[in-house]
């Protein structure tokens, strides 16, 4: 244990030092002899050489000009004064009245989140029917999955205590990755521990500075952030408008052919969402795949809300259109919404998945998903796989029923694809105009306030709804305020009718109120 230096090592050090000294002496003598000789032959040349060396030293040490720099030189006293005077804005702005209200009225659930929930706040102790959580398949209150979770806890504990690279990869992670890849029908998959961060990691992992992204205007916020983080050049096309997309693709390609020459071809991506979180629309994947091949763009598809929801087997948008999943180059999905567990995944070719294990920021730099939630996701997918009709058929029936009932309500605008269990409702502009007797214009806050009132009215009738929330100032195009209704397969027909009825009476009560 004691570290005695080995004798050989010391000797080696000494001899190398000796060698260095000899080399130094030798070269020094050479230079000296050279100078002597040259001076003897040509003193003028030595003078020139000395001047040259002096010039080089002066050039290197002189103050450099920096074109972008317009710094002002200040004395220490001035700096101290300026520091004293500097008055920064407060770290966070003060809350507005409406924001304070929002915080006070926030939904707080006591007990499990599921089809029926009990609120902690307010005097309402009756359970409410939940149309606010993304519990499309009712996996949030599946006793079988829960029972297995208790067993998993006794094997894996809770946290994994490390990123996947540093002993955080569990056997169940690898199994779930295989299972997801097989279920979707892609080559390989990689797990991330949060759905939002999945998109945020995958897009910048492949699309870098100088690459090109053509994205739908209606994409959710995580995609917007991911595009920003990637620093790629982005072009937007009108929401779900394939003609406009084609126009943009064409423009990009024309620009590229004109610019080509020395520079390497950048990577080109079409980025869109399977089931749009902000509208409930479904992307036309068949046309996208056609355009992909014609214009040589790759597709990045965010299936966070469509995985487990769309398609005959619930495998998402590719299943919905019966398109080979390999046509989607990077397929991003979430396990925390329909599947009722946590985190997200990305399906891609094997090399691309392996690339993410080193370059996917959310994968490399954060702890892996807890074992309990991994197993819960795996169980849920298995349940869905063995019995898709049990879940998907009733979910779609419920969605269709609710949609048709909502559409009958006067003054209400219902958005989203007919197949979508994600329904956005809002008051029509005409209704809003009628409501404002005083004639003033509606601000966004006014509309939000009305929607909050609407959800409160619905709560009185035993239905839990939520307005869709956005960080208004950070969204690229702020979606119109709406109430987002999530239909679940676990809802009964009666509950669906109750929901429609609650919305109807809430709308009539709200619209008749004078303002």
């Amino acid at each position, binding site marked *: 244990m004691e570290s005695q230096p080995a004798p050989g090592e010391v000797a080696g050090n000494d001899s190398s030092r000796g060698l260095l000294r000899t080399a130094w002496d030798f070269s020094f003598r050479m230079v000296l002899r050279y100078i002597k000789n040259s001076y003897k032959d040509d003193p003028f040349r030595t003078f020139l050489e000395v001047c040259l060396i002096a010039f080089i030293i002066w050039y290197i040490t002189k103050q450099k000009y920096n074109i972008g720099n317009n710094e002002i030189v200040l004395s220490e006293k001035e700096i101290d004064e300026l520091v004293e005077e*500097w008055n920064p804005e407060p770290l966070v702005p003060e809350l507005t009245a409406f924001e304070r209200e929002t915080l006070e009225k926030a939904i707080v659930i006591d*007990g499990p989140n599921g089809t029926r929930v009990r609120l902690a706040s307010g005097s309402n102790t009756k359970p409410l029917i939940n149309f606010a959580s993304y519990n499309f398949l009712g996996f949030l209150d599946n006793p079988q999955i829960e029972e297995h979770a208790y067993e998993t806890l006794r094997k894996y504990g809770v946290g994994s205590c490390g990123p996947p690279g540093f002993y955080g990869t569990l056997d169940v992670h690898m199994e779930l990755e295989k299972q997801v890849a097989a279920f979707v029908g892609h080559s390989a998959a990689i797990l991330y521990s949060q759905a939002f961060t999945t998109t945020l990691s995958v897009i910048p992992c492949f699309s870098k500075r100088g690459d090109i992204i053509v994205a739908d205007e209606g994409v959710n916020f995580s995609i917007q952030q991911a595009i920003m983080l990637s620093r790629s050049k982005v072009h937007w096309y009108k929401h779900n408008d394939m003609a406009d997309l084609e126009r943009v693709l064409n423009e990009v390609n024309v620009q590229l052919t004109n610019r080509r020459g020395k520079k390497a*071809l950048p990577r080109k991506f079409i980025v869109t969402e399977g089931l749009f979180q902000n509208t409930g629309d479904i992307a036309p994947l068949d046309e996208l795949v056609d355009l992909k091949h014609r214009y040589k763009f790759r597709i990045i598809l965010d299936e966070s809300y469509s995985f487990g929801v769309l398609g005959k087997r619930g495998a998402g948008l590719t299943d919905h259109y019966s398109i080979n999943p390999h046509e989607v180059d990077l397929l991003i999905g979430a396990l*925390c919404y329909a599947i*009722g*567990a946590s985190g997200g995944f990305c399906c891609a070719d094997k090399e691309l998945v392996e690339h993410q294990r080193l370059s996917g920021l959310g994968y490399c730099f954060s702890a892996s998903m807890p074992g309990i939630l991994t197993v819960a996701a795996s169980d849920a997918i298995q349940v869905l796989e063995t019995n898709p009709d049990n879940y998907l058929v009733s979910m779609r029936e419920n969605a269709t029923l609710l949609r048709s009932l909502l559409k009958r309500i006067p003054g209400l605008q219902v958005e989203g694809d007919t197949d979508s269990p994600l329904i956005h409702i809002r008051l029509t502009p005409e209704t809003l105009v009628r409501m404002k007797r005083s004639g003033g214009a509606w601000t966004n806050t006014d509309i939000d306030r009305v929607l909050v009132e609407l959800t409160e009215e619905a709560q009185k009738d035993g239905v839990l709804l939520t307005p869709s929330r956005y960080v208004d100032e950070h969204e690229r195009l702020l979606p119109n305020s709406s109430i987002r209704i999530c239909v679940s397969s676990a809802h009964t027909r009666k509950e669906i009718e109750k929901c429609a009825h609650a919305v109807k009476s809430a709308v009539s009560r709200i619209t008749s109120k004078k303002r």
Partner: protein
Amino acid sequence: MGKGQRATQVYKSTEFIEQRRDEDGLVVGSDPFKLAPSSSASLLETEKAAAAAAAATTTTESAETAASPDAAAAAAKHSGERTSELDTVPTFILVTTYLSYLMLIVFAHLRDFFGKLRHPEEYVQLREQNGWAPMVSDFESLWTRRLYGRIRDCFNRPITGVAGGHVDLLERVSHDFNKSFEFTGRVRNVLNLASYNYLGFAQSEGPCADKVEAAMREHGLTQASTRAEAGCSQLLVETEEMVARFVGTEAALIVSMGYATNALNIPALVGRGCLILSDELNHSSLVSGARLSGASIRVFRHNDVASLEAELRRSITQGQPRTHRPWKKILVVVEGLYSMEGEFCRLPEIVALRRRYGFYLFVDEAHSIGALGKRGRGVCDHFGVNPHEVDVLMGTFTKSFGAAGGYIAGSRALVSHLRLKSHSAVYAEAMSVPVLAQVSSSMRMIMGEDREHALEGQQRLDQLAVNARYFARRLAEMGFMTMGDAGSPVVPLLLFSPAKIPAFSRECLKRNVAVVVVSYPATPIITGRVRFCISASHTRADLDYALEQVSEIGDLLMLKFHKGDASAKRVAELEGASRIKTE
């Protein structure tokens, strides 16, 4: 003497895990926190053990005394005087390390060159083909293919079960030079010096796991919604209050992922026209958050307060580039404990700067919360800084608490703003029930609020401090070049040469010790290192076994760079810092 004394009284009236300890304060026998609590009948022994623990933990004074500004300043001064490890690196090692990398890169290019000649079909992916640009460019992937590929077996090693003091590793072999791995089906139980399980809360049994199960039975598993919509549960609200109490702030916000805690919350604090001053070694999540915020970013030298001050003076007086308009806000972002270096941030000096220059301070306590300080309250507790002097305190639950996710704590105004405006609260899934329950149960235990296990939390904290100091001291005594401050639960040991990095990891694995090795790009190219994470669940036998193996490997790989004086100096340095704390 508020909390400390009250807690002591609670200890005496409750049960306590019986442990045998030796003169160094290390636990003799099996996993210290696996045992069931003994009955309170053995109070006498309890007290004896407690006394031993107190004597062993060099910080016998109460937190308040240690927190006196003088001591903190002295400690800071001391760390400031310390010469950088790199200054003492023998030139021979520097030169050979650079040469090794050069050789690796030359060979990488040579192999690529001949590979492309002989098997062009394997490189098709890297070239532009038929109008499709390659997904991963040739140059970008050179490092991965030719350098990382050689040592791939040292990373992403899969495990099963709990990553506690020991961990079950799934044995795997590669027949094609690490291109693919095959599982042999065998499971190896190895000593775990790799996981961030500082307080040993990664457990599948014991009081925390029981609480988690109870919580799952009562509250289900997950929320399937965001915090701002329908994902906020009573449990979440209560846990947030507890976190705020633990950290010592008015309020806290919980986020379901550690990386997201930084990446999705910084944009809600600063934006265009604001400036972020960031330590050069900040974690990737902080860099992502800063980039997403749209604020200007400037970097100061690692842990260099003078560099920070110079940058502050320049930024405040010069204002924004071109327009010279004053910055709206300046946010200084530092980490409490730098996990790759084992170094603490110079908090007392930075806080002094904050008072003078009026910037906002963001401290990332991902590794320090729960692991540092007498009461486990992180770097503020360690230096005796009032948490109110830091504007934003961020931390994660992955490490000390054996859970997942993170939090942001601060004033009520800050947290209210974040609940409405942070991307994590509005767009990302809310935290799941088992994770929340793990956070709250382990945190209650650390605070001594869990009446049945009131003493165990403090025991774990003391044990971690003792273990960490012992391990670092012994390594220094052996002549290894270690980094970091005394008391850091992360102990990096410098390996330098790229060939020694995988060799160390493989040798360790051969001897049933799991370690993490890191090199470029996670560290500067010259300082490849192995990083030991010490846990409270390591016993004396565990640590001594590890040290013995590391010493052998050190001889084998010629890693004991410090001879005689230098080694003694480093030992004195590690002990000196702890002495200052007790004075």
